[in-house]
């Protein structure tokens, strides 16, 4: 398994995923009317041709790093993946507990993931940033941010 991962180049993975995406567009386009699918089909076919070229090119390439080293270890470490999932969670929690608490907690957690020390600095910065954003965008620019404060006071 490790040997297989070592032989897989990042371009093979990205090329393969993009190729799958182009096939997906083609399959979805079949149901459309002839004139509505013309440009999507041309686009998808071009993507297909170029992604195959990338895959073929990656077989010839000898110098590039393996997929496991280049992607998994260097660019998508576990903490980063956790931050992305946490950001997705932010979207769902935002309308429930409001911008103030969601953003405050989000900032504290993400800062803690990056650096575990300086707890009180994190709390202070998260609080100041959240309040400043609320003040500028909600009160200053009259932007309708989902605030718990407005829910509580029915504003």
């Amino acid at each position, binding site marked *: 398994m490790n040997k297989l991962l070592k032989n897989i180049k990042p371009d093979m993975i990205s090329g393969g995923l993009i190729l799958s995406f182009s096939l997906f567009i083609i399959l979805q386009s079949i149901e459309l*009317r002839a004139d509505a699918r013309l440009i*999507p089909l041309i686009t998808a076919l071009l993507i297909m041709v170029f*992604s195959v070229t990338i895959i073929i090119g990656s077989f010839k390439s000898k110098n590039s790093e393996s997929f496991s080293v280049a992607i998994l270890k260097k660019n998508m470490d576990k903490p980063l993946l956790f*931050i*992305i999932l946490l950001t997705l969670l932010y979207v769902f929690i935002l309308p429930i507990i409001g911008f103030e608490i969601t953003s405050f907690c989000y900032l504290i957690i*993400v*800062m803690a993931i990056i*650096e575990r020390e300086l707890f009180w600095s994190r709390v202070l910065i998260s609080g100041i940033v959240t309040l400043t*954003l609320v003040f500028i965008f909600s009160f200053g620019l009259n932007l309708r941010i989902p605030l718990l404060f407005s829910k509580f006071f029915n504003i």
Partner: protein
Amino acid sequence: MIIESFIHLISSPETITFMIFGVAFGVFLGALPGFGATLGIAMLIPFTFGMDPNVALPMLAGIYSGAIYGGGITAIMVGIPGTSAAAATVLDGFAMTQNGQSTKALTTSAVSSAFGGFVGGFSLLLLAPILARFTLWFGPAEYFMLAIFGLTIIATVVGKSMLKGIIAGLLGLSLSLIGLDPITGEPRYVFGEILLLDGLPLIPVILGLFAFPQSLKMINDALSGKSGTLSGRKGMSTGPAVKIKELLANWKTMLRSGILGTLIGIIPGAGANIACWIGVSEAKRASKHPEKFGTGITEGVIAAEAANNATEGGSLIPMLTLSIPGSGASAVMFGALMIHGMVPGPDLFTKYAAVTYNYIWAIIINSVFLLFIGYYGSRIFARMANIPVKFLAPVMIVITLLGAFATRQLNFDIGITIIIGTITYLLLTNGFSAPPILLGFILGPIAEKGFRRALLISQGDYSVFFTRPISLVILALTILSIYSVLRLSKMKEDSS
């Protein structure tokens, strides 16, 4: 009337104060990813209801000028364009910051932006009635050819791999296909989601392409202990401001980009998003050292910033005379004029001439304010580079998500930013670049609409794209562009 309006404008302390406020506010908004000129003008329009149009419109013009420059600040300091108009500024501007020359890049940007705004404003004042007639000759075939010309620019800005750049452009084009078919109204790739019927919203897509992946990259660098500050070196000197001598040496680039920006601004739908790329592309083509572009040279910043600021004046020409907004911001300005009882068209230059010329002069004078605010404030903006990444990156993410939410007040838009942002981050780590995706996304609908409308009008005759004179001129420019790119690639290969 033109001179009277000028005297009226400069003799009104109230108008001047609001103009300065507009420019400063625009710079602030532009520096926040996702909060560009369009959103800034749209947000302030409600506050101008009770104001005199002679005060309100110059202030809104100030927001536009300031926001376009402001977009360049984050492009230079963090590598994130605050507005899509500043996407091309990232190439050399951010490289200059990494070379320890952020103050130089910011002051260059301020002077170029002011000059671009000046050229665009004067063009609007002098050429509006004449040049606006030219756009009347543009039919769907010309719009299609123009979009294709824009797409060929992708190849000049792709970075290391031209193949990956082209794929990125096509991916952007495929994103633009989501929503209702522009001709038949048939839903495409919406999967039953009503919010996708209007297509992917521009601001969340821009934030997903630039702000979110850049924040992830900053976090990843911080996690791996690569950098503690934005500049990569804590406490790093940001260097001196640009010298006048160096700016004067690049006067040709500045003037060329200013004129190109104005001309592109006149063409409806093109705007600052395209102008900045064409400005850089043409400067690269004319340069004796094209290989230095992207490594952190002032010429690259000048070319992008002079072009994108010049589009303001240009985009207002068809809007004020023919009621055709040339850009998103001018479309919002269209609404602002309507709110103040002024219907764009011939009446603006007769019935409302005083207010109209007052507004046009404001665009020119705002350039002077922008020059001072940008030039002397640049040292303050430059300090952003020393902010610790561990604090800045999470804050950037929250502001990005807020920016995505701001336009339509929909959580759905935040989701779009996160999904596109994560995919873009993975693409970036594998040698792809984000600007071609944005170009494909912006030009895709223009190309598709132009192509299909032209075929409908010509009853399926493809020769319509090659027989019209303007279409042929654009085609010639496209071929020239492809030839130059291929030649440049060959030169690169030979030199390496």
